[in-house]
C-alpha cells in the first residue's frame, strides 16, 4: 500500500514533464485562433443537442452544466 503514493507522484511528475513540452508559442497560434478550432465553435447547435438528448436519455453534464430548465415530459 505504501508504494501507491510514490507511484502516483511519479505519474504526476511524468504527466507534468510531458505537459512542459506541450503547448504553442504565441507566434504559433494561427490555427488555434480559428473560429472552428474553438471548443464552443457552435454554441447554439450544442444547446439544441443538449436539449434533445436531455429529453430522450437519462444523462446530462460533462461539457457544461447539466441540461435543465425543461420539464421534458
Amino acid at each position: 500500500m505504501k508504494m501507491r503514493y510514490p507511484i502516483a507522484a511519479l505519474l504526476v511528475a511524468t504527466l507534468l514533464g510531458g505537459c512542459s513540452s506541450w503547448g504553442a508559442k504565441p507566434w504559433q497560434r494561427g490555427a488555434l485562433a480559428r473560429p472552428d478550432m474553438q471548443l464552443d465553435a457552435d454554441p447554439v447547435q450544442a444547446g439544441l443537442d443538449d436539449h434533445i438528448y436531455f429529453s430522450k436519455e437519462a444523462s446530462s453534464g460533462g461539457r457544461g452544466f447539466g441540461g435543465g430548465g425543461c420539464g421534458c415530459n
Partner: protein
Amino acid sequence: MQLNDKRRALSAATLTLLGGAPAAGHASVLDGNGNWDIDTAVLVYSESDSRVQLVEPVIKGTLNLGGERYLTTKLVLDTLTGASPNGATPASHPQTFTGPSGGSNYTVAAFETPLDDTFKDTRVQGSVDYLFPTSPNGKLGFGLNASSEYDFLSVGANARYAHDFFQHNTTLSAGVSFESDQIDPVGGAPVALSIMPPNAGDGEQEEDDQEGRERSSSESKTVTDLIVGWTQVISPRSLMQVNYSLSVASGYQTDPYKLLSVVGSDGEPLRYIYEGRPDSRNKQALYGRYKRLMFDRDVFDISYRFMTDDWGIDSHTVDLTYRWYFSQNHYLEPHLRWYNQTAADFYHVALYDGQETQVDYASADPRLSELDGMTLGLKVGSAWRNSGNWSARLELYQQQYQDTGIPPEAAQGLSKFDLQPDLTAVMLTLGYRFKW
C-alpha cells in the same frame, strides 16, 4: 487584418469558460463591422409513428462591449406536439386511460404501445450572460436563465471563472450553477404508486387517491451543478479538455403523467398506477475532448463522456465530427454519436400483481431503461465569410431498448407484446450567423 484578429483571439483558443453560455470568447475572432454577433437557428425534430414533433427556433446575440467584455442574450422557443408513451404495456384488448386533466380519456388499440396523444407543450426560455476579464489571465462570467412551460417554471443562475497559465497554454476553470424548478401538473401531482382511477372521464376531477391522500397542486425541485475543467493546448494544431461535473438534484423528479401497468401472470393489465421516483439524485460525469486541425484545413473533433448516478444509471457517450473543407468557404461535416446507458434500479416494464406494495419507487419511462442510441448526421455550411455564415444539418437518431425490468412471474405472458419498440427521429437544423 487577420493578424490583428488573431492577436486579439490568442486567449480565446484556451480560455473557454465552462457552463451555460460560454460562447463569447470567440466572438472576437469573427471579423466584421458590427458589435453584435448574432447566431440564429431553427431545429425541426420529428419522431416516427406520429410521436413527438418539435420546432425550436433560437436567437442568440453577443454584444462586444470592448476590453474583452461580452454581454450575451439568448431566446429559445419550443413547440411540442405529438404522442408520448404513457408507460403502460400493450394488452390483448383495447385500453382506456384517463388523460392528465381528468376530463379527457383516450383509448389505445389492442397490442399497441399506449401513447398519450394529449401531449402538447410550448416552452419559452431566456438567458443573459456577462463575461469580463479580472486580470490578463482570468475571466469571470455570470449568467441568469429562466424557462417557462404551462406546467413548469425554472429559474437559475450561474458563475464561472477561468484562469490561464503558461502563456495561455493551460486553462483551469470552475463553475457553479443553481436552478429552482416549480412543477404544476395538470390535475395535480398524483400520489406515487397510487392507482389511476378507472373512467374518470365523466368530468369529475379526481382529487384524492384511494387512501384519501390529496393530490398536491404544486411541487418543486432544486438542482445544484459544480464543474471543474482543464483545457490544454497540446501543439500549435491540437488541444484537449477534461471536465468533471457533479449535479445534485433534490425534490420532485417524478413524471406526473407516467403510468405503470400492474399485470397478472398472463401479462394482461389488472390496473394502472402512477409512477414514483426518488426525491434525490446525484450525477457525476467525466468528460474528455480532443480537437485537431488536419492538413491545415479540416477539423477533427472527438469527445467521450462517462456519467454515473445514484439511481443506478451509468452511461457512455462518444461524439465524433470531421469538418472537411471541400472549397475555400464551404465544408461538409459528418457526425457520429454513440450512446449507451444502463437502467435505473427502479425501472420496470410493468409490475406483477402485488409488487406495487413491495417497492418504494417504480417507473416504466423508457428513458430510464437500458438503451443504446445512435446518431448519424451530415452538416453543410459556409465559413470565413464576413457577411455571415449559414449551415444546415440533417441527422438520424435511433434508440434501441434492451429487455430489462420484466417481472419474471409475467415474463411468459408479456412475451407476446412488443414492450419497447425502437424510436427513430429525424432532426434538421438550419443556422445563420452574422455580424450586426
